[in-house]
């Protein structure tokens, strides 16, 4: 056998000797996953509070005056960057990737545990550097999360100087951390699968995280390269991106640089980044839907191919973010075409989720509610993506609230709903306790309905032509009174949804102390992580022997079998007596 899990060769597996090495400088993938999770959620809460402040300003511009215009831009920027990179990317890959890959593949740990530990600590450093920008005199950068030059580094943009520098440094550090983690995830999937775990027996969660990691390893370098070049433009006056500029009455020393070059590099990272976040969500939600519908995932092969296709195509759609940058119209045509093409594998996935539910034995558990909620929000966010993928529709809508509505629906709310689904689903395995069901149900309904109350009206505001990125609208003929009222309504909804997240935290803390002790496999699921000898899994995950895999990951409600699920480790083959061992 080519791939024996590392620990069984007498290599690597690092045994903690003290409390500090077990919980702080830990090399155990499960502890690192939790460290990633706690850090990501904490920094995500900061971003949530920032969005609340922005909403107060937008909804009630004349009532609250504690937010100055420059702070509004700083909060917009930090909210976006934190949510996309430091929360979603870190939590899906650093958190769930770390926790699930070794467990779902039957490995004892990641293949490079030390590097894995380092990955978390370097990630934490990147978060600290980013947060430090709140405490420098200029404050954090207000350049918008896309950091477009020339304005990103010019005087006059909030946070010019230290703010933008800390942002660029923090991103570079984050990319180093991600690369260390990503190497681990990829090589673990390639090398440390247990016996019988062929690629086509991997749960879709692992497939999706695997492909998303590869996207990250190839796309983050583009952000890294642009961060380096912009730092040089900022610090030593090169002109990679900076054109000749007259600023505040004087000629700056820059000349000839190309801001559009930055946009190309940024979106060469930025669009795959959408799928770095979306693919893991697709994978996790597939597993949650199949388990709680007691039905094998519909079209597993097609799901795998779709993940691969999306991963590939995601590298040739980046310029659909740049239709208004003045590029060659033929490019626009090309990128609109690829954008519409990538909708095909994505639609296949959506159909397959719906068909997985069809005639399933649906258990409306809390994870299942969130998973089904995701299908709704993702369809709505995805369809508006088709609007914006077309050049002629995008151009008038590009700078309006329609775009805000679209991407919050498709890559804000949707992945977050999956994160909640996944946290509730794996909570019993991670903590050994069940969560409080009623609190979870309330959390779901308020969040799900509330997000529609927030983002659906934004599409309408966009059609009205209400521009985004504005601190206050004042009175213009362009924006009717009803739009102001709607903005106030959105803010109220945002506050209800934001506050409702407290239910989640109460649930987590209450359940950790008082929750019912969890059964090793409370959802009666087939995949390996539910078959561990201990719950939560002990260091090394498995007992003396690694599990052996005999079947695919979705053996639910198989006709003729006594139970409505057959674990992947179950060698007894009632349905196909002729095959098997």
């Amino acid at each position: 056998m080519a791939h024996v899990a590392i620990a069984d060769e007498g290599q690597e597996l690092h045994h903690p000797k003290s409390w500090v090495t077990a919980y702080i400088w830990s090399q155990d993938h499960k502890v690192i996953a939790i460290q990633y999770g706690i850090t990501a959620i904490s920094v995500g809460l900061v971003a949530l509070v920032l969005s609340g402040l922005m909403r107060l300003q937008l909804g009630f511009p004349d009532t609250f005056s504690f937010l100055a215009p420059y702070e509004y831009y700083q909060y917009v920027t930090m909210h976006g960057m934190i949510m996309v990179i430091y929360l979603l990317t870190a939590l899906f890959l650093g958190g769930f990737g770390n926790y699930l890959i070794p467990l779902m593949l039957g490995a004892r740990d990641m293949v490079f545990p030390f590097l894995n530990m380092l990955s978390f600590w370097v990630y934490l450093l990147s978060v600290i550097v980013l947060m430090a920008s709140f405490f420098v005199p200029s404050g954090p950068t207000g350049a918008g999360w896309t950091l477009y030059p020339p304005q990103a580094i010019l005087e006059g943009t909030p946070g010019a100087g230290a703010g933008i520098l800390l942002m660029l440094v923090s991103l570079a550090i984050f990319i180093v951390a991600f690369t260390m983690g990503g190497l681990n995830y990829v090589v673990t999937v390639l090398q440390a699968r247990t016996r019988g775990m062929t690629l086509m027996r991997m749960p879709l969660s692992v497939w999706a995280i695997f492909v998303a990691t590869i996207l990250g390893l190839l796309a983050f370098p583009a952000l890294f390269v642009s961060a380096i070049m912009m730092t040089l433009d900022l610090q030593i006056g090169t002109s990679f991106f900076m054109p000749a500029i007259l600023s505040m009455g004087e000629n700056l020393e820059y000349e000839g640089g190309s801001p559009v070059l930055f946009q190309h590099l940024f979106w060469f990272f930025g669009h795959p980044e959408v799928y770095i976040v979306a693919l893991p969500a697709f994978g996790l939600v597939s597993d949650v839907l199949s388990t709680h519908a007691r039905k094998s995932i519909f079209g597993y092969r097609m799901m795998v191919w779709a993940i691969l296709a999306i991963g590939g195509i995601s590298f040739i759609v980046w310029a659909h973010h740049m239709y208004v940058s003045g590029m060659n119209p033929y490019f626009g045509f090309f990128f609109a075409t690829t954008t519409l093409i990538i909708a095909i594998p994505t639609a296949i996935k959506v159909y397959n989720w719906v068909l997985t539910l069809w005639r399933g034995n649906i258990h409306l558990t809390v994870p299942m509610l969130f998973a089904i909620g995701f299908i709704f929000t993702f369809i709505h966010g995805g369809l508006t993506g088709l609007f914006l993928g077309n050049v002629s529709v995008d151009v008038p809508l590009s700078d309006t609230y329609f775009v805000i509505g679209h991407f919050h629906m498709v890559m804000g709310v949707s992945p977050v709903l999956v994160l909640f689904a996944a946290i509730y689903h794996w909570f019993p395995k991670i903590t050994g306790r069940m969560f409080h069901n009623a609190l979870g149900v309330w959390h779901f309904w308020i969040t799900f309905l509330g997000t529609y109350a927030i983002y659906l009206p934004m599409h309408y505001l966009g059609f009205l032509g209400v521009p985004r990125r504005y601190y206050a609208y004042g009175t213009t003929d362009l924006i009717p009174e009803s739009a102001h009222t709607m903005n106030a309504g959105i803010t109220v909804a945002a506050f209800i949804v934001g506050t409702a997240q407290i239910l989640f935290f109460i649930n987590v803390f209450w359940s950790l102390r008082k929750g019912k002790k969890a059964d090793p496999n409370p959802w009666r699921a087939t995949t390996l992580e539910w078959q561990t000898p201990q719950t939560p899994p002990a260091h090394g995950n498995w007992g003396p022997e690694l599990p052996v895999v005999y079947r695919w990951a979705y053996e639910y409600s198989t006709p003729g079998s006594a139970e409505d699920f057959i674990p992947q480790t179950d060698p007894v083959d009632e349905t196909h007596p002729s095959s098997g061992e």
Partner: protein
Amino acid sequence: MFVTLIFLGLLALIVVWWLLPQNLAREPSLVHGAIEDPRPDEYFPPAKMGLWVFLVVVTSIFALFVSAYFIRMELSDWRPLPDPGLLWVNTILLLLGSAAFQRARSASQKGPLQTIKTSLIAAGVFTVLFLTGQLWAWQQLGASGYFVDANPANAFFYVITALHGLHMLGGLWVWGKTTVKVFSDVAPERISLSVELCTIYWHYLLLIWLALFGLLLST
């Protein structure tokens, strides 16, 4: 972005080649039993796989820089800078470093320990000389007024050589660990893997340097 896309296209071909024997078209629910994975029998160490994945990341960084180089070159303010003759010497030094590693690698499989030791030391010395030479080339350019912020061609030259140099420095750190290991006489098979990984890394960075040097010469 064509350079980057070509690189990604080649990478996609490798991925497809690797995926083809993995039975992606076979309905998995019909396959039962503890079947083996369709994979070569030869044991491929995770560290080696990790190195190759890392090299892919490194390549994509350089490919993106080269893409940016070509895009930026099109603009009117680009003034090519003279290529210091010293770069030829440095290239030869890096070649020698790579060759020394190759010698250490063959020795680590069958040769005497002494050959591994001398080859490793030689590889380190050549690499340090290469880096010194690169710094000297910077010095020469700076002395003739080709500062980093004077022209985008200069800026790209400094950034690309610096990035390559940093990768060599990182390599030297691993080289140091390997050399210490060799001199403290640990198990031969552990040495052999470390030496092999260093050799791959050096060859690869040599290739990248040759590509970058070619780019600098031709533009």
